[in-house]
């Protein structure tokens, strides 16, 4: 029986610097009353509600500092929310911590392997913490070492491992107790393309065994390729949620044309809006070298001649065009006015 994940109206304000991997958020300064020094308040989550269905691969997509790691932290008993609730299956994360920890496996953003142990011992002791018997944990450790191509290094201390090997071992460790819900925080950050594909295969396989997977990423291809459903988050709340196809379809038009003009003329935006297939036009801030506009449209390249003609006729002097096809990047840009990579 697969297990789902739910959060309701999660808020988290860090009053000191947030833990590594959950750093970010936007810094606001609230002067403490009568205090000597203004206290730094960092809101990381701002009313985040999510429902992840049992047995799905769910992605949290957002830029650095959006609140992804903090959300994972709250769901995995590592970050206490300022308010709101979180459940793994039927269990309240903050009421039934030990029960919840049985159900989850966590792959952190930064490897946190036990440096005093060898690769194999890390897996064996991890399973022992979860009360798994000696025979079973030995068998499972061998199986996972094989699967993650670590058998040859099994008896070595992990201190000298490469980043990719540590990441693989972290995932193997999280799978040792066969958790119902697997959390992966930026699992492919810093991995070479080959290892990334191995990782994706392993995640899909784990999901096919009836497990729920929640991963965070700021990589749109990964979210698109791997996740059945996604939530796009920014500034600690969900700005869009759905399947990758639904989300992409929700962008007006789908295509995004970023235009730059030498100078802006008064009726330029209105005239762009009146072109066939254009769904939405947004003015960008003027800069020293001219003005810009984002055009969301049903078509891409075929609009360019019309735009060029229009610009020439109105004296706006088209200087640069960038066309992108329907993508999650465009969706994010549409909602926030910023790129995911910013």
């Amino acid at each position, binding site marked *: 029986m697969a297990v789902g994940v739910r959060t309701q109206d999660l808020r988290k304000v*860090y009053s000191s610097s*947030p*833990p*590594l991997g*959950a750093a970010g958020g936007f810094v606001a300064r609230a002067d403490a009353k009568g205090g000597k020094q203004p206290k730094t308040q960092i809101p990381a989550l701002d009313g985040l509600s999510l429902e992840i269905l049992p047995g799905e691969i769910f992605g949290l997509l957002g830029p650095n500092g959006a609140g992804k790691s903090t959300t994972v*932290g709250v769901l*995995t*008993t*590592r*970050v*206490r929310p300022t308010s709101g609730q979180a459940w793994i299956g039927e269990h309240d994360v903050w009421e039934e*911590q*030990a*029960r919840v*920890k*049985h159900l*989850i496996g*966590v792959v*952190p953003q*930064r490897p*946190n*392997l*036990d*440096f*005093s*142990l060898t690769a194999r*011992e*890390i897996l064996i*002791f*991890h399973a*022992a*913490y*979860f*009360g798994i018997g000696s025979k079973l944990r030995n068998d499972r450790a061998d199986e996972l070492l094989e699967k993650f191509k670590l058998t040859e290094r099994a008896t070595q201390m992990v201190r000298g491992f490469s980043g990719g090997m540590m990441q693989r071992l972290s995932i193997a*460790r999280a799978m040792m107790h066969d958790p119902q819900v697997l959390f992966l925080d930026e699992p492919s950050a810093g991995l070479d393309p080959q290892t990334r594909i191995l990782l994706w295969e392993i995640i899909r396989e784990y999901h096919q065994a009836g497990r729920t997977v929640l991963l965070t990423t700021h990589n749109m291809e990964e979210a698109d390729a791997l996740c059945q459903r996604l939530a796009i988050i920014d500034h600690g709340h969900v700005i869009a949620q759905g399947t990758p196809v639904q989300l992409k379809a929700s962008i007006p038009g789908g295509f995004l044309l970023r235009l730059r003009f030498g100078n802006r003329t008064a009726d330029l935006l209105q005239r762009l809006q009146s072109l066939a297939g254009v769904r939405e036009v947004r003015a960008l801030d003027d800069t020293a070298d001219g003005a810009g506009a984002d055009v969301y449209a049903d078509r891409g390249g075929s609009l360019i001649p019309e735009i060029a003609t229009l610009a020439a006729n109105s004296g706006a002097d088209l200087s640069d065009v960038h066309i992108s096809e329907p993508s999650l990047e465009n969706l994010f840009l549409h909602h926030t006015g910023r790129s995911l990579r910013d």
Partner: protein
Amino acid sequence: MNWKTFFAMLARDAHVARRNAIQLLLQTFLQPLLFVFIFGRVMVGSGYMPAAYKSLLLPGIIAISMIFTGIWAVAMPLIAEFQWTREIEDRLLAPIDVAWIAIEKVIAGMLQAVVAGLMVIPLAWLVLRPGVDISIHAPLTFAVIIVLVATFSACGGLALGCSINQQHIGLMFGMVITPMIFFGCTYYPWSALKTFPILQKVVLINPLVYASEGLRATLVPQFPHLSITAVLVALLFFDVLLLVVGLRQFESKAVS
């Protein structure tokens, strides 16, 4: 309470301690044994110190070894694991209440402190002999004091390990451990401070005083020492205080 998890974590610490045994032995025993050799053999042998000093010195050396071992065994891994390697997260995610992870650390530290305390006796005896006049007059009291001192060292390690930044480790040894050892009545009995009446009162806030005096009272009662009751009450007080502070600090580090 999940005992399987608890014992698995103890097994992990025992495994790591075994692996680092030689390093642990050197860092625990080298300094006290050098001290025993210089003060117990060289100074006494050359006549600068009376022969009785050998016996007076031994309980203090046991106390130092235990305190140093317990603090080191608990505090150093915690400082590194919380702030740098994040290794402890694996155990924080084990299906057990977070406070029990801290208690496991304390138990592991206590065991190491007891082993250190009991090992230093024969080692020091080998260096000092002949002329050491120690005997365990009240085995039960001795055992209770050993356990209380071990608890104090491990709880102290927990409180320090969860309160100190990595860059302040040197400061911890310079400003906390070293004065504690020198004002801990380790190399002299508390009564020797009677010519410094203010200092004699002030050092009573140092828990190591009770550890040294307690061991002196049970191993070499022929020398002046604090009353056993005062020692037991004070050690118990410091154990509870440091455990409460340590647990609170641990939980605030474990959950952000």
